[in-house]
């Protein structure tokens, strides 16, 4: 399997403050990798760094073999779903308008987007929301809105999907349903997924690999190894007994 993301001793500063240091991990093609860590650990910053939205100060970061400084070359191969707080829930757009927004890039400036309707329909089909095409986005439930936002990140048919807290604010059934959808999309589309989450149990049962950070790199590897590691307790500054819980209720294979 090819390396889709390769981070080596990445250091990031924001406003003169070091927020990430010594971050080293890799994501292989077709893997679902979860980024975990306590509040303020720099998980979202790491995701934004992979997207090229935050510059790296030191170290090396490559996406599809291209240094992140030249990410523009591979941007069409990347889909992104930011946190729910990044948008206005009552914004007067239809579901199709929201999905179509994912087609707007620097390449489409002053140009028509080709086969726009077809691409929107396909993306809505991926998330089983075809019948919501003309529905006002503001009328949808939290779970339905998340699916529409996922369709937006899939509309350019990316190979790498970056998801920031996609389950935040959803009730338990909606969280389960959304996680199942991500897993089935990963299988069907051979997607590589990098997912930030607060919910250790949910991400541990879904991911192939976990990356645990708290400003610095703590541990990365198979979920069971990460959850069983003292580094996890150190990162969160508390003691976990997640393995027994995972064994009872988890479904990771």
């Amino acid at each position, binding site marked *: 399997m090819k390396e889709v993301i390769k981070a080596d001793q990445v250091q990031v500063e924001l*406003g003169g403050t070091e927020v990430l240091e010594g971050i080293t991990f890799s994501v292989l093609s077709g893997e679902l990798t979860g980024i975990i860590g306590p509040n303020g650990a720099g998980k979202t910053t790491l995701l934004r760094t992979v997207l090229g939205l935050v510059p790296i100060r030191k170290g090396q970061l490559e996406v599809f073999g291209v240094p992140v400084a030249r990410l523009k070359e591979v941007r069409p191969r990347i889909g992104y779903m930011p946190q729910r707080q990044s948008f206005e829930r009552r914004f007067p757009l239809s579901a199709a308008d929201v999905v179509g927004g994912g087609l707007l890039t*620097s390449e489409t400036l002053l140009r028509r987007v080709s086969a726009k309707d077809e691409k929107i329909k396909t993306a809505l089909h991926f998330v089983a929301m075809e019948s919501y095409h003309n529905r006002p986005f503001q009328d949808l439930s939290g779970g339905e809105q998340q699916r529409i936002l996922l369709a937006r990140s899939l509309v350019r048919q990316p190979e790498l999907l970056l998801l920031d807290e996609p389950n935040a604010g959803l009730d338990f059934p909606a969280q389960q349903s959304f996680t199942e959808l991500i897993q089935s999309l990963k299988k069907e589309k051979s997607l590589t997924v990098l997912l930030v989450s607060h919910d250790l149990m949910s991400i541990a049962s879904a991911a192939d690999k976990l990356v645990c950070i708290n400003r610095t790199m703590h541990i990365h590897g198979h979920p069971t190894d990460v959850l069983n590691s003292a580094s996890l307790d150190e990162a969160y500054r508390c003691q976990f007994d997640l393995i027994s819980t995972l064994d009872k209720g988890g479904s990771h294979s």
Partner: protein
Amino acid sequence: MNEMLEYGFMQRALLAALLVGTLCSTISFFVVLKRLSFLGAGISHTSLGGIALGLITGVDPVISGSVFAVGTAMSTGYISRIGKISEDTVIGIYYASGMALGIALISSFKGYYPELFALLFGNILSVSTHDLIFMALAMVIITAFVVIFFRELVMICFDEEMAEAGGLPVVVIYMGLLAAMGLTVMVSIQLAGVVLVAALIVIPGATAYRLSKNYRAMLFLSIVFGLVGSFGGLFISYYYPVPPGAAIVLVLALIFALAMAVRPLFENARQNKLE
């Protein structure tokens, strides 16, 4: 009505109402969606400094005010992004500083400047052909910008982070929107004055937002409300002793109140239709 149209000043005022009403309500659409209402008030009050500076130095106060308005809008966006200061804090600083500069300069005036009072409180009836040309020019520039970048502007208003991640030049387009907003405020000051102009770029969009679930309908309604307010206020001020700027804002406020009152009826009708 015919009698009203016989006067040259009324013909110019109606044309100004058409231009400014359309322009303000188009910008209002973005102001409401991007939550920039306070910036509108900040720009207009800061421009007082530019207007006063123009009067003292002999520069056309509309030009000097425009430079201040556009400069305020763009630097607010720039400082809030670079300096990590919230936009409302930057606006709060500009708002007071611009007013203070204006008051300091005005208090040093020797003589009487009738233009100053027209710009402070607005007087659409005193609009000259020169002013109309300036308004039309601003309208052409701003409309061209909005038409060219409409899809991108809507997406930036909805989710700036996603737009940036997609590779859109978010900062450039957003700065363009702020410049358009500054220019719109300055052009509209002749209609409603420094004190009331913010209402023209907030109320039409806010009213349309209450009644629309689709951005195309919202833009259309915003323009309709803006024009009804501009023409309605102008007619009222012709027949009753009310200054046109105040009359226009009061008509817009009345439309907003009516929209708030009828919205539940719209919602019920829509719900019944779905059932």
